[in-house]
Structures are given as C-alpha cells and as structure tokens.
C-alpha cells in the first residue's frame, strides 16, 4: 500500500467517522465536533484527489466560516444553563432501511477510482479559472447571483424576525 493509498484511506475513515458522529450524536457539542471532523475529512479527500484549491476553500469556507456559524446558532438556541444542548432523534427502523438501501445502491452504481493506481496530478488554480471563465462562465455568474440572493434573503429573514 503506497503513501497515497494510506492518505486516501485515512481521509475516507475521517469522512465516515465524522458523518456517523454527525448523524448519531445526542449532544450538540459532539454534533459540531463530528461535523468539523467530516468537513476536514472532505478537505483531505479533495487534496488526495489532486484539487488543493478546493481543499483550501473547504477549510476556509466551511471549517472557518460555516462551522463557526453553526456554533453561534447553537449558542443562541441553547438553554443557557451551562449544559450542552441536546439534539434529539426519533430512531426508526424504516429510516435505517432507507439509508441502508441508498448506501448499497450508491456504492454499486457510482463510478469508482481503482486503488493502487498513481496519484492524480494536481489541478492548478489557473486551470480551474480557465474553465470557470471559459465554458463555465454561466455557472460561475449564476453562483454569484445565488450568493447575492442568499445575502439578501438572510437580511430579510433577520429583519422580519426582529420586528415582532
């Protein structure tokens, strides 16, 4: 097993452990920590798949931004008695069956990258910029419009919430 295969396996294990913790944790603090581990695992997967730009964006946007926002929301929603808020679940065999079936189907039908082959070449930010400002310009502009719409939506939501 090469060093690259070992790194991929470690990143995959971190993704799975973080996802399991996020889905099953009962304490909000553990949920956030597990979500952080999952997001870090995703960033490591991006790096192992040859996309350092995406890995850096994942760390800055998610671990540095969204995770802090989730913590902030938990502090606002928390009970304020010093205990970590509980995140309750209604565990259901039907839901477990749906998730298990989905896992089996996805594991079978999605394209796979065989292990043991040479690590992929790193995709430079210049190549990504070429695609985004070339054939992907419409998607790039739409992403900008979506961000602006999200910003306006948050302003409207927060303003309407404070009027009562």
């Amino acid at each position: 097993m090469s060093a690259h295969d070992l790194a991929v396996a470690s990143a995959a294990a971190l993704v799975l452990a973080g996802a399991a913790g996020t889905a099953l944790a009962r304490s909000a603090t553990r949920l956030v920590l597990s979500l952080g581990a999952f997001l870090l695992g995703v960033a490591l997967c991006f790096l192992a798949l040859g996309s350092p730009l995406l890995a850096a964006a994942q760390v800055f946007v998610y671990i540095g931004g969204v995770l802090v926002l989730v913590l902030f929301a938990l502090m606002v929603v928390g009970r304020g008695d010093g205990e970590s808020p509980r995140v309750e679940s209604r565990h259901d065999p039907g839901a477990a069956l749906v998730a298990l079936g989905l896992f089996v189907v996805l594991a079978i039908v999605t394209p796979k990258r065989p292990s043991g082959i040479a690590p992929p070449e790193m995709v430079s930010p210049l190549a990504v910029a070429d695609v985004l400002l070339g054939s992907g310009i419409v998607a790039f502009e739409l992403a900008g419009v979506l961000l602006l719409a999200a910003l306006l939506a948050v302003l409207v939501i927060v303003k309407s919430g404070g009027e009562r």
Partner: protein
Amino acid sequence: MILTVACAGAFALGVYAVLVRREIIGILAGAELMLGAAAVQLLVAGSGEFAAGASSFGLILLVVAAAEAVVGLALIVTAYRRAKRSRIEEFGEVSG
C-alpha cells in the same frame, strides 16, 4: 474504490440524519453531509481527463452549500427568537 464507499456511507448517514432528527440544526447538518459526500464523489468521477472541470463544478457546489447553510442558520435563529422553538414538529404552520 474506498472513497466511493465512504461517500456512499456519508450520503446515506446524511439521509438518515434528515429523516430521524427532530432538531432543525441536526437536519441542516444532515444536508451538509449529503452535499459534502456529493462533492467528493464528483471529484472521484471527474479525476483524470476532466479534473479541471470537476474541480470547477466542485467549487460551485461549495458555494451552493455555503449559501444553503447560511440561509438555514438564519431561519433557525429567527424561528427561535420568534417562538422559542427549535424542533421540526413544533412548526405546524408557515406564515409570510
């Protein structure tokens, strides 16, 4: 191979979290799991000839997921400030 199985597992766990969680923040975390797993699988499928295109599309997916998370968290905080409720079954009605 191992990444695809891990992504499928993370996506299924995200679906499970969305189905069984009662707190809205847990449901939002489940949605994040699904989006993260989809982004990694996108790169797995596009590795090789389409690596630059897959990375570009992954970046746009990251933007979509970030926008979804920010709007979702704003809704959670506003709903809690208005009604002191954070469980999904307590929101029986939606008003504009």
